[in-house]
């Protein structure tokens, strides 16, 4: 049980690492948000699932409530994070920031 939760947290951290590398490597404002989406979907989901599983190894009622609360963090982030991402993209569109494309390289790298 402990091994599974450690494994889940490790894979979650791997996704966090990949997302951070993506934010640095990708060329422009819009595409960087794709990598940021990786952080708060799988990174958060897997690491929180690992934590919830770790709490549940000592199976008492209070710990079940704690595990539910941990999974509720994921639920709330899954609802709010697309909304925040959309607000950021919308700010970019309103600021007339041209998206980077293949044939128009370096359109607007920040």
């Amino acid at each position, binding site marked *: 049980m402990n091994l599974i939760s450690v494994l889940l947290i490790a894979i979650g951290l791997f*996704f966090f690492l*990949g*997302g951070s*590398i*993506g934010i640095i*490597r*990708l*060329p*422009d404002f*819009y*595409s960087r*948000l*794709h*990598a940021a*989406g*990786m952080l708060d*979907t*799988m990174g958060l*989901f897997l690491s929180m699932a690992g934590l919830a599983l770790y709490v549940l190894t000592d199976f008492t009622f*209070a710990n079940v*409530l704690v595990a*539910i*609360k941990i999974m*509720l963090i994921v639920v709330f982030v*899954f*609802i709010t*994070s*697309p*909304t925040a*991402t*959309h607000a950021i*993209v*919308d700010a970019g*569109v309103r600021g007339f920031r041209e*998206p*980077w*494309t*293949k044939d128009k390289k370096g359109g607007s790298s920040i």
Partner: protein
Amino acid sequence: MKVQQRKSSFVISFLILLLFWVVFSGRFDLFHISLGMVSCAIVSWFVSDLSIPNPRPMGILRLWYNFFLYIPWLIWQILLANFHVMSLVLSPNMMERIDPHILRFRSRIRDELGLVTFANSITLTPGTITVHISAYGDLSVHAIDKDSAAALPGEMEERVARIFGE
């Protein structure tokens, strides 16, 4: 009719708030439960004229049931998309493999909540972000490469439409 709707909206939000109160507090003595009931009643009375749901062809329980069936599929799609974006980001020739572009299409979903669910699902899936959505269902989606864009609107739209009975 209006009063009836307001009453049912009050009852539903009261029950949901009370459930969250119990889960978050974790205390079951009379003092804490009664405190929770009073505050939940006040809050749901305040919001009961704001949260009147749109009329839907099906009941709210059926809607929630369909929604819970959708979530595992969405998480599986998010997992697949995560591995795809991960392989893009970590590959040495990333600049050749990515092809950011914006695609536009019109969704056949008419329900407002359904459109919000669809747009948020697109944004949650790494590799695609909803840039703009109109009230008539016109979407602009920023996709990071051809493979991410190929899945849209496709199966995700079908499933969201099915949740809302369209």
